[in-house]
């Protein structure tokens, strides 16, 4: 098929032809075409089916406000549903499918819904599918979704890339029509940093759609020349294909740049879209206006469109929906469309003007005081029926009807801070109010200045005011300056199936029903009828719905309410919001200093926060993780094991008040800790609950190194800064994180000292006498490398932690493995670490879970009463100190083969098993290779006094029901002899 509806002129490149497909048929287009303009050129008016009644639909508009021309673009995992044919640029090979029809667009089985429309009115679902409730999810919803869907998803991952970025400017100009271009010129010439963004691929706005002149140039030539000047200015950034989607707090605007939607395939790594977080001192909204339709019977047939869109298709895209068209208007703008189309050789059946005093035109017939009362044409418009001023009827043959009901300023972004537009009687429309987002001004048609001259002037003036520019404004080209003459005409009296919201199939009748049933506020109207929902958010429909509701309620429109708008201005793919933060890149990954070595060893890694830690190190032949973990535990306890514990938070605390500061943040005392010694510390929250624990090593009188748990490192550091800056601002203490600076390895087991002695330089004596349990100090290793050594133990064995600068961590680990061969050294991962700490009865994250106090943890006596520390006062609250308070205990199964699971609850051995009789719960559980059975740590009411008691451990969810014995939490070496060996 050739492009039978191509007209002369236009801003398309006829020297080049593009091939595209729609519903599996081949068509041609030219660069500069949208999918909608190309389809019209190819005489395709039928583009989709409506949401509810499956009525045949074509395009209504030529822009992003389109409610009808919604298609699926691309195929496979790149399929994108619900895209507007009116904004989709045609590229070679574009593949589009119509939506919401089965089996085909021309024959849609569900068009039967249209016959039953009396039953499918607003509120139908709410009233009909109420009973029984269980049917909703299983039956009704799936059926409704299938029948009343928009496009379909590929159900595959989106393979495209999306970026996010940051822009800064003095003035963000939103919209590049006459006002926006003139504003950019005014601001740009003064050297201010200007961003000019427009959702269209061609800058110029309506200047590209009109036939009139600006000065000596055609409007589009003036736009092109202005764009050329602006693009030569280094301080102006032109951003076509960029939609400003939202106005956020303090001059932050979201802008989506479609960098790849207009090409068939993107080079690897190039983004499809970029979400720009734009910081601007001032914003100028030049978003133009949207023409509004008139509701009349059967006003939704393919071929019926906004008159301004018809003009855009003719002047910019050199195409028409039909060779013979009619215009239905309530204002002079409709006449302009008729003139422009006639000039391009399109036959004008008539201009039907509701006004008795409509202007006469000798080029085409004008029917004054007339109204379109009905239309014909199943899959596309064929006839319109007109009621003439004298009451007689006339049938006009035409393939397209342009409808003009006046213009609504595009106020959307002015509402994003809950600003309310105000009714303007001259415009008969809502215009921006006074409560704009701070820093925003509005110019041109968006502010109700509908003439081209007015737009140019207000653009220039607004830019000058926004930037406080002195001096003369640029000369304005002479331009059309028609006065505003908008008299409201929303719908034809007596019509019923007259569409207001074509996307949601909401008719005049539905609004009446909503009123009748008491849903009269605009918010209720929207929810009850779905008016203004879905992808177009009612850009062409909200006003008429509101006007009809006002009429029914006998109130004025402003009394009835306003519709305000939320971000985003137009739909944004979820991928754009995600940007690069997806899959593996969802968050940054932190690698330990021994990571590369561990990977070589075949370690299995686990994510701990952002860290990747070795979980265990499987050996050849080991088929189950428990084999590896049990071996690592046994070998460590028998000889020596090494574990990377770099991930623990490390905070350098210095200053003359460092000890006093630690006294505040830890519940136990640190003032008297000797230099060269380390002490366990428990940190409470102010409410008395345990926050975190760790160790503090005193390297000098005024210098401590504090450790935190891996998970809480960031929070603890923040808390310590809070205590330092907000609570004790005169303390001389300085904090800095050193977590990443040092590679720190636990070397644990009876042979740990022997192994370390091979590495620690001989001048440092690490014998038990010289370097006892809880000792610490700066040393050197391997011939002079600065290092730190701490004699602390999480495993319960004789153990050390050794730290070297991170860059040497890899080499140190390899050295430990090499030098440890004679001791059969084993690397162990977080699982073995966890098993050993449970065996030793050390609390960890599972126990410091935000609901436990020092008392619960068995450390109640650690809370010093001789000093003030965070949480000490509230930890003494009665409620936290009841006699039957939970206390940490150990549990063992009575039958050694039984398994213990974390989360299971403790009940009396005999007696009811229910929440009321709950005695406590298990926080940590593991198989203990040392005891050869499962063990667990639990919080048990009055647990300190219940050792030896037999209880029942239950977890109905995981089907656990076993008999257990309450024991000491210190399963291994309860006297701590190994630690001190």
């Amino acid at each position, binding site marked *: 098929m050739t492009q039978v509806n191509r007209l002369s002129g236009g801003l398309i490149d006829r020297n080049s032809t593009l091939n595209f497909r729609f519903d599996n048929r081949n068509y041609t287009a030219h660069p500069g075409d949208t999918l909608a303009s190309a389809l019209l050129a190819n005489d395709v008016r039928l583009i989709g089916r409506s949401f509810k009644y499956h009525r045949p639909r074509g395009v209504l508009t030529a822009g992003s406000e389109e409610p009808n021309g919604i298609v699926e673009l691309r195929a496979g995992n790149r399929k994108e549903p619900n895209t507007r044919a009116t904004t989709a640029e045609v590229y070679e090979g574009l593949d589009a499918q119509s939506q919401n029809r089965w089996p085909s667009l021309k024959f849609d089985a569900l068009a039967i819904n249209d016959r039953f429309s009396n039953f499918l009115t607003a509120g139908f679902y709410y009233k009909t599918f109420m009973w029984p409730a269980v049917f909703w999810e299983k039956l009704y919803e799936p059926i409704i979704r299938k029948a009343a869907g928009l496009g379909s998803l590929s159900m595959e991952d989106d393979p495209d890339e999306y970026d996010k970025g940051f822009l800064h400017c003095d003035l963000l100009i939103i919209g590049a029509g006459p006002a926006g271009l003139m504003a950019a010129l005014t601001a740009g010439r003064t050297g201010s940093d200007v961003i000019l963004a427009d959702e269209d691929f061609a800058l110029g706005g309506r200047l590209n759609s009109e036939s009139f002149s600006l000065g000596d140039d055609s409007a589009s030539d003036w736009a092109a020349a202005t764009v050329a000047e602006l693009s030569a200015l280094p301080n102006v950034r032109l951003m076509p294909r960029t939609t400003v989607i939202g106005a956020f707090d303090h001059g932050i605007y979201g802008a989506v740049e479609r960098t790849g939607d207009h090409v068939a395939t993107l080079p690897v790594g190039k983004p499809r879209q970029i979400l720009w977080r734009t910081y601007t001192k001032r914003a100028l909204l030049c978003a133009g206006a949207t023409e509004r339709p008139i509701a009349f019977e059967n006003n939704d047939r393919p071929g019926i469109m906004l008159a301004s869109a018809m003009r855009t298709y003719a002047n910019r895209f050199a195409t028409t929906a039909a060779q013979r068209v009619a215009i239905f208007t309530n204002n002079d703008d409709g006449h302009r469309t008729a003139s422009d189309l006639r000039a391009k050789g399109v036959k004008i059946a008539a201009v039907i003007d509701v006004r008795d005093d409509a202007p006469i035109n000798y080029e085409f017939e004008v029917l004054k005081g007339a109204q379109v009362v009905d239309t014909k044409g199943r899959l596309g418009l064929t006839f319109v029926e007109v009621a003439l001023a004298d009451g007689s009827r006339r049938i006009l043959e035409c393939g397209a009807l342009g409808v003009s009901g006046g213009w609504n300023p595009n106020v959307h972004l002015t509402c994003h801070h809950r600003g309310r537009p105000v009714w303007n009687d001259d415009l008969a429309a809502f215009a921006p109010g006074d409560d704009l987002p701070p820093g925003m001004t509005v110019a041109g048609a968006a502010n109700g200045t509908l003439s081209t001259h007015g737009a140019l002037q207000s653009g220039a003036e607004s830019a000058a005011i926004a930037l406080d520019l002195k001096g003369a404004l640029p000369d304005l080209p002479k331009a059309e300056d028609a006065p505003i003459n908008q008299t409201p005409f929303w719908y034809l009296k007596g019509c019923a199936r007259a569409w207001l919201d074509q996307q949601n199939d909401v008719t005049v009748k539905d609004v009446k029903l909503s009123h009748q049933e008491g849903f009269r506020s605009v918010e209720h109207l929207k929810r009850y009828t779905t008016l203004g929902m879905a992808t177009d958010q009612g850009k062409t429909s909200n006003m008429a719905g509101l006007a009809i509701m006002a009429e029914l309620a006998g109130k004025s429109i402003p009394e009835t309410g306003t519709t305000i708008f939320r971000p985003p201005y137009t739909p944004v793919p979820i991928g754009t919001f995600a940007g690069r933060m997806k899959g593996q890149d969802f968050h*940054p990954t932190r690698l330990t200093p021994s990571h590369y070595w561990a990977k070589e060893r075949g370690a299995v890694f686990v994510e701990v926060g952002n860290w990747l830690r070795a979980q265990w190190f499987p050996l050849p032949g080991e088929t189950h993780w428990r084999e590896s973990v049990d071996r690592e535990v046994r070998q460590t306890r028998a000889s020596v094991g090494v574990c990377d514990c770099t991930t623990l938070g490390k905070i350098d605390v210095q200053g003359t008040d460092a000890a006093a500061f630690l006294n505040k943040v830890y519940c136990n005392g640190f003032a008297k800790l000797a230099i060269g010694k380390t002490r366990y510390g428990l940190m409470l929250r102010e409410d008395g609950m345990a926050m975190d624990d760790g160790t503090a090593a005193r390297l000098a009188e005024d210098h401590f190194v504090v450790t935190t748990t891996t998970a809480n490192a960031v929070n603890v550091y923040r808390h310590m800064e809070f205590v330092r800056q907000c609570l004790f601002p005169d303390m001389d203490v300085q904090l800095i994180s050193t977590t990443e600076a040092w590679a720190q390895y636990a070397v644990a087991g009876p042979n740990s000292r022997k192994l370390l002695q091979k590495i620690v330089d001989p001048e440092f004596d690490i014998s038990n006498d010289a370097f006892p349990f809880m000792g610490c100090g700066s040393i050197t290793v391997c011939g002079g490398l600065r290092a730190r050594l701490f004699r602390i133990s999480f495993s319960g064995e004789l153990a050390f932690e050794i730290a070297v600068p991170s860059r040497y961590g*890899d080499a140190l680990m390899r050295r430990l493995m090499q030098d440890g061969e004679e001791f059969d050294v084993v690397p162990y991962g977080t699982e073995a670490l966890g098993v050993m700490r449970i065996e030793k009865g050390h609390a960890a994250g599972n126990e410091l879970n935000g609901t436990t106090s020092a008392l619960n943890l068995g450390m109640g006596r650690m809370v010093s009463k001789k000093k003030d520390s965070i949480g000490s006062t509230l930890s003494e609250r009665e409620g936290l100190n009841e006699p039957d308070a939970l206390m940490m205990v150990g549990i063992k199964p009575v039958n050694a083969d039984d398994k213990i699971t974390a989360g299971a609850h403790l009940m009396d051995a005999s007696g009811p098993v229910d929440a009321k009789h709950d005695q406590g719960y298990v926080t940590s559980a593991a198989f203990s290779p040392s005891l050869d059975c499962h063990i667990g740590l639990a919080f048990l009411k009055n647990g300190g006094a219940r050792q030896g008691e037999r209880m029942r451990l239950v977890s109905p969810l995981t089907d656990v029901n076993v008999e257990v014995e309450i024991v000491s939490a210190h399963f291994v070496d309860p006297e701590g002899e190994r630690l001190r060996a």
Partner: protein
Amino acid sequence: MHDLAAITALGGSEPRVDTVADVTCAEVPGVALASVAARSGQEAKAQKALAKLIGVKTPDIGRFAGDPVSAFWTGPDQWMVEAPFDSHEGLAQQVKDAIGDAASVTEQTDAWTRFDLNGGRVLAVLELLCPLDVRKMAEGDAARAAIHHLGCFVLCRSPGSFSVYGPRSSAGSLHHAIVTAMKSTL
């Protein structure tokens, strides 16, 4: 002299260099760092000692100064001192010796990884990475910024040349983010 071999933050024995179009991202392991935080009431003394160490006035808020030993502002009365690693591996001790009890000094050398970004269109790369108004940054500007959710320092060496310091453990993620941005925009 010890016999442990260092690896770079990206895990190599040699620093990584990536070039896309006219922009180069180079891993820079050859830098020693030490933080300086003035002690209470000793701010002036600490500043004076630091100035002497770097040979110029102590940098103001959001600035860096000095060569070859330089410092950048990191917080109220806090700075990070930078020096060539080969000549200053023991930088923390050297700084402590110079400043004495007027400030707390902490070794930070391996807490950070540094990538130097150079080239004509480096600003286009940076505007995809961080919220700073990089086009307004001048030689000697230093600012904290989040890149790929990582707390980084961005130093402007000259309008076409920036250093990015990020947490060492996340060097791989930071490098990935930088190179991805380079491929995206260049």
